[in-house]
């Protein structure tokens, strides 16, 4: 059976935060969103990016591997769960080990919280709340073949952080033929471009 997962396409994100609002409704982390919508370069662009847990599968969940009390469990389907409250001792290893900046930490409650791919909904074949609410398809839920049949773009689940490649269950949507999201190389390109031309001279790309 094809594995259903999330496809994240920040180019479609309009920063409406519907995903955050929908996530807040979940009973397992009442009133607090586990999805984060960030401005990428506030002051220069209105571009935003939604972040959900990428559910790393190779290396398997760095957050779970660095957890000293084995509080972060991984389901047989490969979904990395939020910390088991009876075990989490609030050391924050997971918060700083996560390459994607996902886990949230409640210092007073000594508890890490994170997106668990709406496990309660997805095991029943329902979409996660964020994908259900996203009006633009920036967060899309389904299997790979379905995505390729319905959408443009190339789903990629490999991200390169300098010397470390991380394969994830959740996909980024990239332009065709891009094998991976190479963070450092792309940041260097962006910096070189920035140094070459003053940003004020650029034509506004959001009208």
């Amino acid at each position: 059976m094809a594995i259903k997962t999330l496809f994240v396409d920040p180019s479609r994100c309009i920063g409406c935060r519907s995903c955050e609002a929908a996530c807040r409704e979940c009973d397992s982390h009442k009133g607090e969103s586990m999805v984060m919508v960030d401005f990428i370069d506030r002051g220069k662009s209105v571009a935003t990016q939604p972040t959900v847990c990428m559910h790393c599968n190779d290396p398997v969940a760095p957050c779970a591997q660095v957890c000293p009390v084995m509080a972060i469990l991984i389901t047989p389907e490969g979904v990395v769960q939020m910390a088991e409250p009876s075990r989490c001792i609030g050391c924050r290893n997971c918060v700083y080990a996560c390459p994607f900046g996902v886990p949230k930490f409640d210092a007073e409650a000594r508890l890490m919280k994170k997106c668990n791919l709406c496990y309660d909904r997805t095991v029943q074949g329902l979409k996660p709340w964020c994908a259900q609410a996203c009006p633009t398809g920036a967060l899309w839920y389904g299997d790979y073949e379905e995505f390729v049949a319905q959408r443009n773009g190339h789903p990629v689940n490999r991200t390169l952080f300098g010397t470390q490649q991380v394969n994830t269950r959740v996909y980024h949507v990239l332009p065709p033929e891009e094998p991976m999201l190479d963070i450092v190389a792309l940041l260097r390109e962006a910096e070189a471009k920035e140094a070459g031309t003053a940003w004020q001279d650029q034509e506004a790309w959001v009208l």
Partner: protein
Amino acid sequence: MQRRLSAGILSAITGVVLVLLIFLGSRGFKDFDSALIGYAVATVVAFCALVYRYTIWITRPPTWRYFKGGWANFLSWKNFRRYLTLVPKAWWTDIFGQTFIWRRSKQRWLMHICIFYGVLISLLITLPLTFGWFHFTLIQPDNYQMWFFGLPVLKFPIEAGVGFSLFHGLDFTAILLIIGLGIALWRRTRDAGLLVTQRFGFDLMPLLLLFAIAVTGLALTASSLWWEGRFYWFISLTHQVVVVGWLLSLPFGKFFHIVERPASIGVTLYQTVNQDVEHYGAQPQTGHCARCGDPLPSPQFVQDLVTTLGELDMRYDLGEEKGLLQEYCPTCKRVMRGQAYYQLMGKKFL
């Protein structure tokens, strides 16, 4: 393999030492109550299994780092003045007062504190009794003598409050347990979030076992006080079976957190004393994010985390001028990924 061997050896040593202590404490099994042998054997097996799992757990790279760091801080004279107040405070907030659960939910705190003290006090009464360390003799005409490890410790009149409290200790803890378990089961059957995420074996089974222990325990008292001993052997056998089941489940299920949890004291020490991460309130952190400059745990914390990741075959080296990914705050990690993404995409829309 090495870890398993060490764990096996430690577990075997624990078993031998415990049996030896039972032998000594019960004065060569003279004070040992053979009717309670099922409890004693299950406790010894549970202890050995707990030591085995604890050793395997504590030697995992991230756990071992905190374990060593926590003890190094505890045994460091330099930190003495600071941990002098910190350790008792941590014992209160993490173990005896459990104030962090109060922050999660007040109902949960009440539930947990009832179960915690119910289980803890019950164990403190039951284990020495089943090991034959505690026993009572009658001093004619109406006094009891309490013995511990073969030594006389307390003499009290049978009808006095002390006697009543001692002999009904397990009834009081059973009532405490039933209150806590009632709240827990109420939550687990009403809370929509829990209903979908709880697992029967991990979350519900331990509660049901404890409930069965408390109810059958009270039924023993009821049988001897009001039912003229009817059903006593059946109830006591059922009680023994559920207690043995609970003891044997200790190392494998949810209740392993009873022995895991005190590790948070070590983590508190490691972080607060040495690593400048404050658990209990606002204290400035000494590290800074390499990109935005926002507070980050100390460089020592980051270095230890990087070493742990290295032991797990992971290294997030972003190159000379950018440093390591763990030197960035979570927000900057997300923003940098977004910047890289938009560099790739430009103004395209897929």
